[in-house]
């Protein structure tokens, strides 16, 4: 039973990291209507930045050239800042265009970043990656309790991001963001500089993803480019959609469910001995879950409560006849 608990702890930790990712994405899409399909880019920047800041200087045999050995806290903060900066850089060419441009360009950026991770050995260790990333308070917490401690840290991060999202939603800034989402022309008419507001929201969501990346780095203790594929962006989106976008609770619930689903399906081969077709079958099930949710619970499990007039117009417009 204790073994099960330990496994559950690690599943919960991963779910928590995805919840932070989903909360960030919720600020982009749920609150501001930004179609960010390169969320993993912020995640990766957060993870690599904290790793580079905290790992020791490289030895002769290691591929990377920088390791600053700074405290973990500095690394995490640095990871968040770096992710925010990337959001600014990505936002400049795309946030003034139609939303589809952001969608595709953000995927593109995430791909470019992955190739940088794979090729720039001096910075990222290349395909070999970075190892031996320190974990916070490693020496202080007893090893048998460490997993629980780290889960606690992750839960704390989820809580902070959740509280921030709630406050944001109720603040005047949050109302501006939603008005931008629902009807940009109206908010321009109101004299809001939508570019600036969109940029702020983009940065905030990016920082949250960076935080998730930093948490991942110190959890995994090793980073390789294979951990930063487009499927992370996709899983986060699935979580947000299933949970209910525009609603922070929905983002957390959705992220938790999708990770639980992914992990629970690991037990399928144990039950049925399906052997070689199981892995593909699992992915097919995740795909089906997405389609079914959108078809039958389009607003997710926890829908946003009120939907504005402009949003309705949008939906009617898409409805065609």
């Amino acid at each position: 039973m204790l073994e099960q608990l330990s496994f559950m702890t690690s599943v919960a930790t991963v779910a928590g990291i995805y919840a932070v990712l989903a909360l960030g994405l919720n600020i982009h899409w749920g609150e501001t209507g930004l179609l960010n399909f390169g969320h993993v880019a912020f995640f990766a920047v957060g993870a690599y930045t904290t790793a580079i800041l905290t790992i020791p200087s490289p030895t002769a045999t290691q591929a990377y050239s920088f390791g600053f050995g700074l405290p973990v806290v500095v690394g995490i903060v640095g990871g968040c800042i770096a992710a925010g900066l990337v959001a600014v850089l990505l936002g400049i060419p795309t946030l003034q265009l139609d939303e589809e441009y952001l969608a595709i360009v953000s995927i593109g950026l995430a791909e470019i970043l992955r190739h940088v991770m794979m090729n720039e050995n001096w910075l990222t260790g290349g395909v070999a990656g970075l190892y031996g990333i320190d974990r916070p308070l490693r020496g202080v917490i007893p090893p048998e309790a460490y997993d629980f401690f780290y889960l606690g840290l992750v839960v704390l991060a989820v809580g902070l991001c959740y509280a921030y999202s709630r406050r944001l939603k109720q603040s005047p800034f949050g109302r501006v963001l939603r008005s931008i989402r629902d009807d940009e022309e109206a908010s321009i008419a109101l004299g809001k500089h939508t570019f600036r507001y969109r940029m702020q929201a983009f940065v905030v969501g990016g920082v949250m993803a960076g935080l998730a990346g930093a948490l991942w780095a110190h959890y995994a203790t090793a980073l390789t480019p294979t951990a930063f594929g487009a499927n992370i962006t996709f899983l986060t989106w699935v979580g947000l959609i299933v949970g209910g976008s525009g609603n922070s609770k929905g983002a957390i619930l959705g992220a938790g469910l999708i990770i639980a689903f992914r992990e629970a399906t690991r037990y399928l081969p144990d039950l049925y001995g399906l052997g070689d077709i199981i892995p593909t079958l699992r992915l097919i099930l995740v795909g089906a879950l997405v389609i079914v949710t959108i078809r039958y619970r389009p607003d997710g499990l926890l829908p946003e409560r009120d939907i504005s007039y402009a949003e309705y117009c949008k939906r009617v417009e898409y409805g065609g006849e």
Partner: protein
Amino acid sequence: MAFDPQFLLNGVIVGSTIALAAIGLTLIFGILDFINFAHGEYLTLGAYAALVANVALGLPFVVAAVVAIPITVALALALDRVVFYPLRREGAGALSLLITSFGLSIILRNAVEMVWSSDPRRFDVGGAEAMAIAGVRITAVQIAIVVVSLVLMIAIHLLLTRTTLGVTMRATASNRSLALSSGVNTERIVTWTWVIGAGLTAIAGVLIGLNTVVRPSMGFGLLLVMFAAVILGGIGDPYGAMLGGLSIGIAQEVSVAFISASYKPAVAFTIMVVLLLWKPEGLRGADT
């Protein structure tokens, strides 16, 4: 070191197939107003349909390639009916359609892998040996690929400008609501768009498979490149997609001469981002 024109030729071959597939993607985007992430899988399915006809049933390659078109089209139409149409009817937003297409993409890709495994497969066509023409190497098959692509692009141009269906498709793409007000049955146009889009994509899949190999990830691997081509040409613009596809194919292959080949996939996106900064409306966009 002198620049080897071989890179340019390789680019034209790769680019013309990307262009074909990108036309399908951009047409569907124009009419249905969402980015179809499953588009790459239609390309894969087209290639596998031809593969089964060619290798398993022993049909001549050209016949198999032709057979693949209606099969892929029928599949695309069936998937539209089952997956996308119910959402359209209920007035779901573009994002719901997009995420649904991503789910569909995963299902299709893995279903293909489940049925045919991840092993690369080849069409049963005669051994291709490159001939040297004016200092570059090209095979008869590759010449055919470029010719077929060009002919299809001209055919699409004629369709879009000379036929009522084509003009209606462009009209529906630019203003769906107004098309309805002009008496256009947009669902009928949606059907035709799938027919043309999936048909072109199936041919692109067969040509890419012919130029290289057929495997479950072939379409998904090209999806981002197709997106880049579409953006480069201006979203929803079929001519832009042709130009974008060719440019990206050439840029990728030529880049190998100058930078590490492992950065090749990033070339398309770098071009895309730079273009957006410089000319956000796409290569063909108006200067106003």
